[in-house]
């Protein structure tokens, strides 16, 4: 059960800085709009389009700004466009957009979903089948005739990374991790481990998700995980998450690499650890999170916690039990897996955004945070934790 990356603290070598952040979510686009939204306690929810399911809808983006060729935009489905857009924002933020020397050495790890389907084609097949017109060739005929050939490329998980390579010229390497919430944690974990060990100098790490998809809601509806009817902050929910939309990318590089090119850090990424509790017994997740916490190194009094807790039961309760053990630290539930970006943003702004919670889990923080622990427990599997610190 032990996380292997933190068992050998001596192997943690080079310091890694977060030097670029690209954020495009339901709260807006770019760092300022996110900071403003967090400080004004804005939450963007759509309770009607997919009623009774509640989702956080994507901000409308002008894709041309980051994906100049219409042909490229047409080759992507929404989740890829959102991600490619956010990757561009991150490269801009790090000051390496268009710098082919650096981009050709930049290692990319993307945490991906995929599989956006053609709902009309699926429906046509289903209706023909159920009416007994299920000649052997029916499925073949409909799919051969009705599927857009390029749709496959818009569905393939590794084609978000592929599009980032094509549109932004990031070619050092390209790896795509899949596996729900844990994939994002592992993407950051592996990128940091490689940089710390000198296997990589600079990495582009990120993810994208389109919440406004019925087939995506379906997968979670099978397990009764969707938040229904009315939005409520995660700490007030019995069970359920509202799927969030967004693209989030970070540029992470070794301190030496950043200094050599005169890049300013938003924050230092000190640790990323992950675990896979079996979740067979009550308390397994709390134990897993306790174990991860112990691997972070010293967490001081000027620390805060940002959690991506989902609101899903029973895991949110177990995460809350873990957080109760750290009552002295201010906690924020981002409701998203974007915790690393929000932590780096908060550290760079010298403040934690205000609480937005009536249950008392979240408290004010008057002083600037010097450390932020980012916590994530996947709705079904996967626990992760990261330590983001002021440089």
């Amino acid at each position: 059960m032990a996380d292997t990356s933190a068992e050998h603290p001596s192997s943690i070598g080079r310091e890694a800085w977060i030097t670029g952040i690209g954020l495009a979510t339901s709260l807006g686009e770019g760092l300022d709009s996110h900071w403003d939204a967090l400080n004004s306690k804005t939450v963007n929810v759509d309770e009607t389009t997919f009623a009774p399911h509640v989702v956080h809808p994507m901000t409308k983006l002008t894709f041309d700004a980051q994906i100049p060729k219409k042909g490229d935009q047409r080759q992507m489905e929404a989740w890829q466009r959102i991600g490619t857009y956010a990757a561009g924002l991150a490269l801009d933020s790090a000051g390496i957009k268009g710098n082919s020397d650096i981009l050709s050495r930049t290692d990319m790890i993307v945490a991906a979903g995929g599989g956006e389907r053609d709902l009309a084609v699926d429906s046509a097949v289903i209706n023909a089948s159920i009416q007994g017109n299920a000649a052997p060739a029916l499925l073949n005929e409909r799919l051969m005739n009705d599927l857009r050939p390029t749709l496959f490329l818009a569905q393939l998980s590794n084609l978000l990374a592929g599009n980032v390579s094509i549109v932004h010229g990031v070619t050092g390497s390209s790896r795509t991790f899949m596996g729900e919430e844990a994939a994002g944690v592992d993407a950051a974990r592996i990128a940091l481990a490689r940089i710390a060990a000198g296997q990589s100098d600079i990495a582009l790490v990120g993810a994208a998700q389109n919440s406004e998809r019925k087939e995506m809601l379906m997968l979670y509806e099978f397990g009764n995980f969707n938040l229904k009817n009315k939005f409520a902050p995660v700490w007030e929910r019995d069970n359920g998450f509202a799927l969030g939309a967004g693209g989030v990318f970070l540029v992470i590089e070794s301190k030496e690499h950043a200094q050599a090119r005169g890049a300013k850090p938003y924050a230092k990424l000190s640790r990323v650890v992950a675990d896979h509790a079996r979740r067979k017994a009550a308390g397994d997740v709390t134990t897993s999170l306790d174990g991860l916490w112990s691997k972070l190194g010293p967490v001081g009094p000027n620390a805060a916690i940002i959690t991506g807790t989902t609101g899903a039961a029973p895991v949110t309760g177990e995460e809350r039990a873990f957080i109760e053990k750290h009552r002295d630290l201010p906690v924020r539930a981002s409701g998203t897996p974007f915790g690393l970006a929000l932590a780096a943003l908060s550290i760079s702004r010298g403040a934690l955004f205000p609480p937005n919670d009536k249950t008392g889990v979240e408290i004010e923080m008057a002083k600037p945070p010097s450390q932020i622990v980012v916590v994530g427990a996947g709705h079904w599997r996967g626990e992760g934790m990261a330590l983001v610190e002021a440089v």
Partner: protein
Amino acid sequence: MTATRDKFGRPIVVVTGMGVVTSLGAGKTDNWTKLTAGESGIRTITRFPTDGLKTTMAGTIDFIPVEPFSSTVLSERLADVAVEEAVAQSGIGSKGDFPGPLFLAVAPIELEWEPRNELARATGLTSGIDYDALLKASGSGHFTGLHRRFLFGSVADHLTETFGTKGSPISLSTACASGATAIQLGVEAIRRGETDAALCVATDGSVNAEALIRFSLLSALSTNNDPPQAAVRPFSKNRDGFVMAEGAGALVLESLESATARGAKVLGVVAGCGELADSFHRTRSSPDGKPIIGCVKNALSDAGMSTDQIDYINAHGTGTPENDKMEYTGISSVFGERAQQIPVSSNKSMVGHTLSAAGAVEAVFSLLTLEHQRIPPTINYDVPDPAIPFDVVPNKARDARVAAVMSNSFGFGGQNASLILTREPV
């Protein structure tokens, strides 16, 4: 006392267990016998109706039955078979307690047609069924199992819980290079000193109607349906596409130090890994070959080896007009005149393209090549392509002195990965 670090001071990474399953059979023995006999695992598809399809054959694995058929379930079973063989051979850990992390190459998972039609029936409607109706039916509590089954991480969850790997299991996709990437992640983790062992697995059970049609619509598949055994023709002038196939490969990687300490038999060394992404096109390689050239050079430099130390190239060799040409362009640019002398064969001529699994399946075959000092052939090589003057080891296996193999994998989305496998540490 043998050195346990390479010339760069990194822990030497060795292979102590291997498992493989392909359309040729389950296990190394069966696969190696058939592979070196030049047998093909490609057959006419019987799993689903092929009416109206341009391609009607594939390297399906029908000897491991899954009823009703599900690509995700088959992928998981294939992985189980390969991992059991690999772990048993290595003798590492104890049952259900593998002392290291899991890196799993797996095809992207999504809900399949069988459960989608079941949901449609559950709506109670007989017409006008749309995704609103399906979504409504999904929440009845009758389909909880579908959530567990069709999560992206579900196959990795199963493996990590069955074999007791440690930490957070990683499910990854770099398209047709995925298997090589899984191995590269394991090598890197051991070199960092994070772990003494890693379980690197790649599996693919994707031959279903929709997946076949998706590739067919991209004009990527061979339509040489009759006879199916002659469909895959890597490096031949009359090649016309790849053939989808199923399989799994598993490797137990360990530091040489750890393997030596526990007295494990060393099957080979992963001396180097290289990768480089291509920004040219979603499905095509850059016409100048630069990304492939860079990838191959990265692998050589990671191993600290030169081209004249490579004795055999286990090619990606899909049999598509584009891939094979670009592979020659890339290899000949790096290897110079030696490109026409060094043996270069394609396992895919016999087992088809096992997609996400290919990199690991071919790494296992490369290691078996090192063990047996025998190079599997490229079959169906009857009409040489003058533009690709490789020594493809045509049609018959060949005994040869092989100390180092380069195994290449290239995929959609600009994915390129190369591995260098050796008998002894270099």
